[in-house]
């Protein structure tokens, strides 16, 4: 895969990230996200750039980059598909979805599918751990956006639509951007998609809907501010 060199703009943004923190090294995780956005993976050049800005050794940066699973030494597709195979999702069908996608894409874990003639975009596949969406099991992530309540068939449809270059939306979020664009958001540069998607998915609202139907709410607050009792200085 050809990688364009890190631009002056990216270098300036890397410095900008470091400057958000009282100690610049705190910026390293988001800086590595930006390297991935700019270069499609963690490159030796990206590691050197972070090391130079933070005045630490490349070995230290490399040690951090290899510790965290979201950092990729090898490139991923335009759309990186993660299938949750932690216990709850696995049992609910995540294992079957992952098997089906491996077979359909003819790849193993953590690989990029071949770009067929006519495909305008690439996809890669990985099995992932619990993504905090168990009430929507089985869960798939595309570029770290939720694709809730999947089946093997729906998962195949999603990857085919993505390869064909169609617009696909998260079931609980925005229109999907590319992996590199998503990595830029993780580096702390918003992309303007925040107002897309719902407030909450259907499962998130399960309890609230029941409360509404039955007229339940939290206890009424007292009419006078009840904290006044605690405003006496609070030395206790």
């Amino acid at each position, binding site marked *: 895969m050809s990688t364009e060199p890190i631009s002056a703009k990216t270098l300036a943004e890397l410095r900008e990230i470091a400057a958000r923190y009282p*100690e610049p090294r705190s910026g390293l995780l988001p800086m590595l996200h930006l390297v991935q956005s700019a270069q499609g993976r963690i490159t030796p050049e990206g590691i050197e750039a972070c090391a130079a800005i933070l005045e630490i050794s490349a070995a230290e940066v490399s040690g951090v980059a290899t510790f*965290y699973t*979201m950092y990729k030494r090898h490139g991923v597709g335009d759309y990186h598909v993660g299938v949750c195979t932690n216990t709850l999702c696995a*049992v609910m069908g995540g294992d079957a979805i992952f098997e089906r996608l491996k077979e359909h894409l003819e790849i193993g874990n953590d690989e990029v599918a071949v770009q067929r003639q006519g495909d305008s975009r690439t996809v890669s596949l990985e099995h992932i751990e619990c993504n905090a969406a168990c009430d929507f099991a089985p869960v798939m992530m595309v570029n770290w956006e939720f694709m809730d309540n999947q089946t093997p068939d729906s998962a195949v449809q999603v990857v085919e639509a993505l390869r064909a270059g169609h617009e696909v939306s998260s079931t*609980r979020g925005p229109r999907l951007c590319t992996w590199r664009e998503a990595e830029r958001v993780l580096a*702390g540069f918003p992309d303007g998609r925040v107002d897309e998607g719902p407030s909450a998915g259907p499962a998130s609202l*399960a309890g609230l809907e029941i409360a509404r139907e039955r007229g339940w709410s939290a206890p009424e607050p007292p009419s006078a501010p009840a*904290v006044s009792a605690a405003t006496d200085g*609070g030395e206790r």
Partner: protein
Amino acid sequence: MTELTPVLTDIWDAEQSWKLATYAARGGYSALDTAFAMSPDAVIAAVKDSGLRGRGGAGFPTGMKWSFIPQDNPKPKYLVVNADESEPGTCKDIPLMMGNPHVLVEGVILSSYAIRANKAFIYIRGEVVHVIRRVQAAVAEAYAAGHLGQDIHGSGYDLDIVVHAGAGAYICGEETALLEGLEGRRGQPRLRPPFPAVAGLYASPTVINNVESIASVPAIVKNGAAWFGSMGTEKSKGHGIFSLSGHVERPGQYEAPLGITLRELLDLAGGVRAGHQLKFWTPGGSSTPLLTAEHLDVPLDFEGVGAAGSMLGTRALQIFDETVCVVRAVLRWTEFYKHESCGKCTPCREGTWWLVQALTRLENGQGTEADLDQLLDQCDNILGRSFCALGDGATSPVSSSIQHFRDEYLAHLSHGGCPFDPAKSTAWAGQEVSA
């Protein structure tokens, strides 16, 4: 019948609930002036009086944690919000930040004021881009409205918030590993003491709290400690989000007083999926020992679940019916712990590897009954000997499943493999036939 008590979830069904305008129209950010009229110590006292205990798993009293910050220490104080939510089964903080990010931001301001921090960090796991967008935007909106920055509301109090994305590591939910991540290092836990309250981020006094803990603060400041304490049980006060997942008719988020039972929650959720029975469940994520149908009436508060031999944890109620092989479930969780072990200490690094080997053999029907006792021995070598609670948690599913389902392990041996059909457990099981 315990009634649901939506507080943090109450806004989730509103149009654009994540916007400041929506939040403010419901009284959002009004707790700031209430707090600024109080001394920081009085805010700490109010949170202490409320009985709020940490919602990230361990249940440590929040106000007490804040009072440990040495105010005579000249170094800056920091608040760090733990939004790493990665404990298997736990899925409450993510929808909370997606649907109601401003309650978290308001809570950060109040909590930072109380501990006298002028800089706060929200450490969000990286694998949830849209949630990160929502929190980033909420912080930006709060700055623009004058709720953050210099001299907030003319109070003389300054606060900056940095939203920080993690990069994939369950261990970074452990608070000292999180600090390592936030300092740009590998996420490996630190030796305690010193505790973060004394020497945390940049060796400065630091409070680390869960998202839901911090988000509970605005209503406590606004409505009072007594209001909060009117919900819940004697030692486990207030509201909490209960997350039902798996083989239940209506999985999802149910905000209720602590002390509600699984029987009550299942009743609201339409029961275990039709035609099936409850087999086992986790009360608070995979690191909390499994419970069974015997425990349906255990009050889901810190004391009740503790007395039943498990832990309330994060109220992550993963429900498994009789189609699920407990050995398969436990093996998968154990593979997770092995993968996520940070490698710093031997009992966990080596022990989780051995657990996976032994469980794999049993799942394949190989071995003898003596291997079960060896598994329990291995758990003994990890539990209490590991450097952090990840290792301890890894033993919970193993030992509790052997305690409750020893016969099922043995059935794998006599059957020469797993006697269960995984197809029967899927969300779509049975639908192909009827369609």
